[in-house]
């Protein structure tokens, strides 16, 4: 089974060898004439306005943090939806219970959402 990967390995090695080989050949054969505009990160493009190692406003992190939490919680709904469809086909009692569970879950999320909203965490100013 592992043998079937040998062609892939050969391809990868060939790719590396080709890329590295061309760079090495270029380094030795080509001429080097450096000047400031050539050394700029985007040669021939728009000149840089500022450095990219700047401090970013903490609000971006706060929004990202809130997004992550709600995003992860949404992941719980997918497996629930799959099970819920099966449950509706077998027994309505279990289906009703599953629906109730999801209501509880969404209500708990809503509590957090209302808290964050009223605490003005979404206000940019």
């Amino acid at each position: 089974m592992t043998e079937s990967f040998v062609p892939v390995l050969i391809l990868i090695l060939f790719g590396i060898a080709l890329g590295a080989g061309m760079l090495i050949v270029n380094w030795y054969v080509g001429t080097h004439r450096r000047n400031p505009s050539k050394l700029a990160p985007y040669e021939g493009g728009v000149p840089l306005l500022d450095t990219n190692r700047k401090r970013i406003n903490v609000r971006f992190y706060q929004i990202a943090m809130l997004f992550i939490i709600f995003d992860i919680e949404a992941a719980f709904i997918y497996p629930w939806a799959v099970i819920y469809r099966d449950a509706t086909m077998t027994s309505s009692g279990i289906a009703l219970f599953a629906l109730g569970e999801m209501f509880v879950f969404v209500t708990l999320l809503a509590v957090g959402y209302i808290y964050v909203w009223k605490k003005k965490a979404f206000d940019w100013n």
Partner: protein
Amino acid sequence: MTWADLLFLLPEIVLSIGGCLLLLAPVIGGRNNGVAAKWSMLLLLVATAAAIYVAAGAGIPSLALGTLFVADPFAVFFKLLFVVVIAMITLLSAEFLEDGRYSAWEYYSLMAFALCGMMFMASGTHLISIYVGLELLSLASYILAGYYKNETRSTEAAMKYFVLGATSSGILLYGMSLIYGACGSLHLEAISQAVATMAGNQALIIGVMLLGAGLCFKVAAVPFHVWTPDVYTGAPTPVTAFLSTASKVAAFAIFARIFYMGLHSLEPDWNSIIATVAALSMIVGNLAAVTQTNVKRMLAYSSIAHAGYALLGVLAMSEIGLQGVLIYMLVYAFANIGTWAMVMLLRRREYAGENVDDFDGLHKSAPLYAFAMVVFLLSLGGIPPTAGFIGKYYLFAAAISAGYAWLAVIAVLMSAVSMFYYFRLVVAMYLKDGAAADVIPSRQVRFIVIVCLIATLTLGILPERMIRGAARSIAPIVNLASR
């Protein structure tokens, strides 16, 4: 899982709803910090009623949520203890939150969620429910430790607690994943059946060791104790009381349940490690406490030592050992909260008044409270007729009967060392003169001191009911372990 299962989860459900309401209260209406404590106490009362209601039907272990959750006497014992401890901490916190610089509602909401997590830990029979409960408790504790967000010390304590706590839960989880791979299940009874047939499985042993390391962090045992002094010192004093009692007791509840229910047949593989951890905790905790001048820091080291004593009960793997853990947790909780309440009674502003010198001459200004402090310290040191003696007696007896006489010798020697530093406080209170020793006029804190004083003395002089209760509570787990 059906509607009927929800009945067993009643205390947890009450606490979740109550926690959400406490969280929403300040943003919807009430900004009055003063009433937050009252609502929180009401919530705790309802939760207690629910826990007692569940307890009434808990003669036989009743499983809920599939196999995730059990309402057995062991869980009920710890749940009632948790409710009492959190109620006392709520009263202790009321005074420092009333001045309004820090929001009281979120504080009590976090307490309610932490209590819910602890109840899940006590009831969890599946590693997943134990883990989720543990994380609910830990996440709330990280925030509570940093609740004085304008104080650098408190924020620093939260940061240290968070970094080390999150790392340790990662280690704990990796251990659980290896146990899952080896046993094919994470239900404690299934683990117990699976491990009985695979002595010497490397993955399993590594998994158990990582799990044990994570648990040792949560109970603050050496060598996973380094966070304890800093976090206990930096956190607000009521939160320190919470961390050193509620959080530790909950961690011991799962420690005992996991090792007695799930891993008892692996004992030859882990007993020498736990024995070493217990011995190191007792030695390092007590010797380091001797040199401290800050009371909070001294009590932090002393709580490391107490984790070492309680580990003897886990190590013994016997009926008397488990009974000892339960009794010790009960008496430790009262004596410890009493001590912290005394520290709070001398507190001026956020942190001042927590040096040993601050106790100077307390005997003259407040004789009753000085006497209470002596009783708490005697109980922590394990001297009769206080309750601490009963707890230590059971633990040491369990260690000797399980063949760990050397550990019992270390424990007795180290208890003697602990009396040395506890008596420094007694000397300060009775033999030194100090103008500084005055107590703050907080009715709630005084009430807690008196409650803990009465409990410590009563449990020490009339321990029969406590011993019988502990014996009844451990029955389901001991039956499982001996099967």
